[in-house]
Structures are given as structure tokens and as C-alpha cells.
């Protein structure tokens, strides 16, 4: 069972429908108490960094999500949900993130059109099970004005180029993030969600023994 965090800041329905399409069970969670019953977690998000952190805080999500990440269960942040995995966001001043990955979230330099919106291709930087079966230079749908700068280069799984080369997929252990919207990136986005879902199912099978 994959839990999708509903903290009022994401296109939950799209994520839910995409996971249904590739045959995984999901539950939309409005309270952190529901985290107990899920084997994998998706944190979606659109909007501003500070807003999202405020919403997570007032919904009582921060500590339970942090504990979930420590439990080793698969965890995927999408778009803003990926950005808040980092320590600091620079959108409208400096704000603390969840700090599950080391690094900052910064704005694209002026010059190009902002937001970076549309289909961009991925450069695979290292093998990962999340991107299994996805060829180098596959396209994904992005909408964002800020991007992550991980402190550890080893946390960068794939990059994209929009004037600057930025991380499109990040990950460490069981905590992963996609800057693009896999739920809106047919067909490879659905492949990524399938990979995540399989991982969740494997984890569930292992932990039930």
C-alpha cells in the first residue's frame, strides 16, 4: 500500500490515478496516524517551499514523515515534495526543509524563461532501481522555478539541462525525489512509478516475514 500525503499542497488525484493505472494500491492520507499502515510514501507538492513546510508543520506531518524515512520504507518526493526533502529552501527567504537530504534549493538564474515548464530530457548519472528500464535522454514533464543543489554529489541520480545542469532525480537509501511530475510524464513517468511501486511491494513482502 502506497500512502500519498494530503497536506493541501499537491495534485493528489493525478498521482493517485497514475498509480492506479499501473496497478498499485494507494491511499490518500489526511493524518499522520495513517502512516502506520503504509509500506511506501509519496509526498507530492506544488506551490512555494515555505508554504509547503508550514502546511506540513500545521498538519503534524514533519516528525512522522522523518520517522517514516528512517524506518527504511521507500519514500518518493515529487516536485516541491522533492525540494522539501533538502535542508534549506531559498524561495521567499531562507526556510528549513525536512533535511532528509543534504543541500539547498535555489532559484534558476535569470536569463531563461521561469518557470522551467515543459518536457526536458534526463541524463542518467548513475544506475538506480527507480529509473530501471528508462533510457538515457527520456523526456519528463517539469514545472518549477527552483532546483536542488545536493551537498553530496552521490545523491544525484539524473540531471537535466535548462541553461544550468540541475538534479532531476535525487536519492539516498530509501529516500528519493523527482523534480519532474512522473504522473504527468507518459510513458516514462509511469515506468518510474511502476519501479517505485514494485520496490514498495518488495519491502512489504520482506517486512511481513
Amino acid at each position, binding site marked *: 500500500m502506497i500512502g500519498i500525503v494530503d497536506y493541501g499542497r499537491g495534485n493528489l488525484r493525478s498521482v493517485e*490515478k497514475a498509480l492506479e493505472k499501473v496497478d498499485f494500491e494507494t491511499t490518500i492520507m489526511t493524518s499522520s496516524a495513517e502512516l502506520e499502515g503504509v509500506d511506501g510514501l509519496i509526498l507530492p507538492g*506544488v506551490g512555494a517551499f515555505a508554504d509547503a513546510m508550514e502546511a506540513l508543520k500545521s498538519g503534524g506531518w514533519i516528525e512522522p514523515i522523518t520517522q517514516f524515512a528512517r524506518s527504511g520504507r521507500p519514500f518518493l518526493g515529487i516536485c516541491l515534495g522533492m525540494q522539501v526533502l533538502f535542508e534549506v529552501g531559498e524561495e521567499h527567504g531562507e526556510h528549513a526543509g525536512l533535511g532528509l537530504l543534504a543541500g539547498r534549493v535555489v532559484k534558476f538564474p535569470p536569463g531563461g524563461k521561469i518557470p522551467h515548464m*515543459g*518536457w526536458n530530457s534526463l541524463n542518467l548519472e548513475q544506475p538506480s532501481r527507480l529509473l530501471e528500464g528508462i533510457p538515457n535522454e527520456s*523526456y519528463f514533464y517539469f514545472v518549477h522555478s527552483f532546483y536542488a543543489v545536493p551537498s553530496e554529489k552521490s545523491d544525484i541520480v539524473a540531471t537535466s539541462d535548462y541553461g544550468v545542469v540541475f538534479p532531476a532525480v535525487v536519492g539516498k537509501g530509501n529516500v528519493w525525489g523527482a523534480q519532474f511530475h512522473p504522473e504527468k510524464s507518459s510513458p516514462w513517468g*509511469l515506468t518510474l512509478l511502476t519501479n517505485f511501486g514494485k520496490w514498495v511491494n518488495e519491502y512489504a513482502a520482506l517486512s511481513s516475514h
Partner: protein
Amino acid sequence: MLSKRIIPCLDVHEGRVVKGTNFVQLRDAGDPVELAALYDKEGADELIFLDITASSDKRETMVDVVRRTAEQVFIPFTIGGGLRTIDDIRRMLRAGADKVSLNTSAVQTPRLIQEGAHAFGSQCIVVAIDARSTAPGRWEVYIHGGRTATGKDVLEWAAEAEALGAGEILLTSMDRDGTKAGYELELTRAVSRAVSLPVIASGGVGTLDHLAEGLTLGEADAVLAASIFHYKEYSIEEAKRYLAQRGILVRKTGGLV
């Protein structure tokens, strides 16, 4: 690198796709959800549904189209037509739309752009502009499906929409719409240069070369087309292959191009 987008537009009237010429004479062109799923499969980068149903009491039909589309289509899609309030916008986004397109209501109540961007993010607020040429290098904004002149200058309105928080401009040349004579390139280029938002060129496409022109000479970020795809004159795949041959970066889908 960021690719250029091809966006099929589906004009929806009482739950069916229709296409007219110069905003009149409607012809039936199929079921919107079926067409949307086909376009997704063929490699469309995004979809736009324009609800041209005149009476708002039939709006529920469109919400249903959106809901059903969201279950089958996994590329971004935009809903436009008759959205007047924040609640209208919220309803479409909740039903599964990724963006909304505001036209008449944005001109009449510019605050709606601001409030929409604040509540849901700029990325989901598309401002649609219907433009008619008034003099060389000058265009006027029309509303009410092209029936009412506003006296507003298109370039000024585009800049104002950006300042209010719009995330994208959908620019239709009324002079070209339905003519198959090609996009109005001068207009498209002028708006692309007047704002730093992505601009979607619309109105007049009849050949694949027109798509290429819109993206190069018109400096658009995306091109919208309706009839050339609905009536199967060209497939999305053919269009992408053609653009790639012309050296324009388009999204490849599963060995398609």
C-alpha cells in the same frame, strides 16, 4: 534541453469535440476522452480542452469530461471556457485538470489571475488572448469568443497578465483561426518578446511547415492545432518527425521519432 511542445486543442460543445471556422459553423469531431487518450498515446505533449458550451448550467458535463480524462491521460491538460470564479477554477483542478485557461473573465476581472495564481500557483493559470489585427504591428484583444472588442492592446494586456501572475499565454489570431493559412507569425513573435512567459501559438495551422514556422519565426514555445489532427490529416507522430527533421527539439516517446 527543454523541447518544444505540440498541443492538440479540443473544442468541446456539450460533451463532444467540435471544430468551426472563424469561431462559427461547428462540425462534430468525436468523443473528447477517446481523442485525448489517442493523442497521449501518439505523443502529444499536452492537451487543451476549450468548453464552448454557451450555458453554464451544462458545465457539469465538462467536469465529467475532465474527471474521465484524468483517469486515462497522463500528460498535462488544460481546461478553458466559461471559468469566471476561483471556485470554477478549483472545481476543474480538483476534477483533475492541471491548468485552467482564462479569457473573457481575465479581461473583465484581472484580479482573477492574481487570486488564481496565489491560490493554485502561476503554473496552472493560462491567460488566453484572442487577437485581431487593427493596424500593421497592432492587435486588439477580443472577448466573448471573439464577438466583443475590448479596446485593449494585445502586447500591453499580455504584459499585464504576466505581472498579475499568469504562467503562460495562449495566443490565438482571430484573423487566421480556421483559415489554414498559417499562424500569424508577427503577432506571435511580438507577444513572445513582450513577455518572459511561455507562449502557445494558435490559429491558422494547416500544414506541418506552419508548426515549424510558429516555433522558429514566431518564437513560440508551443504550438496548438486542432483540425489537422482531428481529421487525421496528420498524426502527432508525423508532426514530430517533421519538426525533428527541421532541427527543432521535440520530445521523443518510446522510439517514436
